[in-house]
């Protein structure tokens, strides 16, 4: 049995301990806001928070997440980084960042983790931190703007 604490709730899962956290979340906890994009930590669509840090859930065995607080996009607004997360989600909507939307859960999780540690990132800091999250619709210009907007809202 794997015991996972996700968005403040505890789940007992009878699954392979080697299963990536991503698939445990999506198919066994039932939280599908976190997406599969590459499976090798190259695209960031699977980004969640583990103990407050943004990690790629596609490449972390679920056993490694046991005993830590996991936050997914579904639990972001009410989680430990709720205030930052809400500001990021609001800025994303104010600027209509999304296009196809598939990568955006991961982008928002990554951006929230960035602002939680660096409340006023400049473009270079944003580029460096967000470069692991691919958006094939190339909404990057708006993501940059939205991160600045969220930072201002939180200041």
């Amino acid at each position: 049995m794997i015991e996972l604490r996700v968005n403040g709730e505890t789940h007992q899962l009878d699954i392979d301990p080697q299963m990536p956290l991503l698939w445990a979340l999506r198919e066994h906890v039932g939280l599908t806001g976190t997406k599969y994009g590459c499976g090798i930590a190259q695209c960031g669509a699977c980004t969640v928070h583990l103990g407050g840090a943004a990690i790629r859930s596609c490449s972390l065995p679920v056993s490694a997440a046991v005993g830590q607080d996991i936050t997914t996009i579904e639990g972001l607004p009410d989680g430990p980084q709720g205030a930052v997360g809400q500001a990021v989600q609001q800025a994303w909507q104010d600027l209509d960042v999304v296009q196809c939307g598939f990568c955006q859960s991961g982008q928002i999780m990554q951006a929230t983790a960035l602002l939680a540690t660096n409340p006023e990132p400049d473009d270079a800091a944003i580029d460096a931190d967000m470069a692991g999250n691919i958006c094939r619709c190339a909404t990057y210009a708006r993501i940059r703007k939205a991160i600045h907007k969220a930072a201002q809202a939180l200041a």
Partner: protein
Amino acid sequence: MSTPKIVNLSPAAATAATTDTVDRGRRSFLKTSAGAAAGLTLGVWLPARGQMAGAGRVAGPGMAGGEPAAAGDFAPNAFVRIGTDDSVTVVCKHLEMGQGTFTGLPTLVAEELDARWEQVQPVGAPVDNARYNNLFWGQVQGTGGSTAIANAYEQMRRAGAAARGMLVGAAAEQWQVPAAEITVVDGVVSHPKSGRSAGFGELAEAAAAQPVPEAPTLKDPSAFKLIGKAFLPRKDSKAKCTGVAQFTQDVRLPGMLTACVAHPPLFGAKVRGFDDSAARAVPGVEQVVQIPSGVAVLAYDFWSAQQGRDALTVDWDESGAFTQGSAEILADYRKLAERPGKPVTSIGDAEQALAGAETVIEAEYSVPFLAHAAMETMDCVITPDAGGGVRVINGEQFQTIDQQAVAGVLGLEPSQVRIEMLYAGGSFGRRANPQSDYLVEAAHIFKAAGGKTPVKLIWTREDDTRAGFYRPLYLHRLKAGLDASGKPVAWQHRIVGQSIITGTAFEPALVVDGVDQTSVEGAKEIPYAIPNQAVDLHSPQLPVTVQWWRAVGSTHTAFAVECMLDELAAAAGKDPVDFRVTLMGEHPRERDVLKLAAQRGGWYDPPLPDGRGRGIAVHKSFGSYVAMVAEVTLDGDDGFSVDRVVIAVDCGTVVNPDVVVAQMEGGMGFGLSAALMSEITLVDGAVQQSNFDDYLVLRMDRMPAVEVHLVPSTEAPTGVGEPATPVIAPAVANALAAATGRRFHRLPLKRAA
């Protein structure tokens, strides 16, 4: 794309309201039987066939199927439903894959209906070729060619205007006042003289009894309140920011098995045999089945299916496989380019004019195979439906073609294949596959697994990258002549590359006199007045599967033509903008976007310092005109960055300016991947790339600052999803030439020789 001819299309029967396994309706229509709302189904300008959309199940993003209309709801036509709860539901016939259709189509309805934007919600249309066809494609339902707004512009406005007319009629009758005295503003119907007013919901039931206006009057553009409004929030924004938007990958049905497939390692390889003992030993694996495209492992979850797939030992018969590499293909194309191909354009006598030219410039341009690499890999759900049919659930882009293909595999009538359209996590052309490849694969797996179990096919990123259906590799050879004054007198353009159309249902419409029109779009007619022109085409056939990729032929023709124009300007000693403008007398819209981009992009500012360069390009595609100025900075011995891109676009009437801006930003960014880093290469027939670590795409750190300028226009609206994509590569290549003093002829652009 123009109208394709598709044979054997039977009109789809109206869908019935039955299953609701994954329903997550966002509003509260009362459950009712499919026939209950039949009294409200009124044929307007579309042929009335059975029930209208309101009575059938309507699929939609975030819902994987909608709710039947309730008694009292008002469904005046196939596109609009007004609920007694005051909701306005707009049935969208085009896929939302990021390009904004689920915002744009409702904008058109809401404008003429005078609805409040907040009360309007989009849902996806079911498959129904008669009602939801793309008006530019005959009786074919599908999304592509940047046609969503262009083909539906009047259709959706009429749908809104008709509904408005019926609401007004109902109010006039109830209030016993002349209809002409009634106003509709922001979702409220009012009679100012008597002070009476009502919301749409209150009038819905009575409106349904009103006669359908045969020719509803449309607003004069000067009266538009929503069309052209600077910012109208996207309808899919919140769901996509909170993780609740439903994609195919997210669908889970009771008893569903997930499938992973071992695909051939080479194009043309086949399964000779396989050993599945290790695969079957993986916990969770339920079945292993052979299908035409490989061997599928079905399991209770994705992880088990993938583990099982990876544990298969497949004996591949590679005797008939394609074993050439990209380098050999290119060498073959070079040989082909030595002799004339099928004539495409012939004006004057290019050969003779070249012979008499003062200066002759020759250049060869080439582009590689490209994968679409949408963030959501190809995936599809198939599940048994009532009456022996099936439900297909996916980010559906090609309803008519896919319905026939799936029906063919399963031995069903097309009408027995219901298709529910979810959001697509990108497509860039991939989900509009003329062979319905991944849907056909899903259907084979469903069938081989017994046809009773819901199946979800998910491709891994590696499957997706290696599966073919690429933008083809192309070679362009150009030769042009200038007279003594530097004026171009001859233009010879030879194009070599696979046809994406031959062998598909689109062939009768799109291959004309042996010339695939998509191979030559953007080169067949150039906006430059050159008195002698000859364009011809070779379409060699290869087993590498190919397909349209965002902006299609223009992805390579714009690169060749616009770089060559710059080479001619340089040879003539002229400024690239001035040189183009003097040749564009008969193409004022291209000329005007070019000038606008130049003005806003700092073209006439003082020259950039050493190590930096500015480049420009202009191109028309999908009816729209786009020009870009790109600025680059050289970095070290062989690096460079694209710092800033200024875009001017003329796409006729702009429905949602912010969506157009977003498509320009994103379309440019998509093209920038191809300009800077993306490349599928073959060695001995094997695709060398597999995932985002070796199939490189644009990331945040290389996204330039971008600025978009819209040309005000009252012309009919034209495409915006694709036209920005092809313009960036030549703009950057020309900027790089300006910065380095040498020309660049290959994509992706590399400074190192």
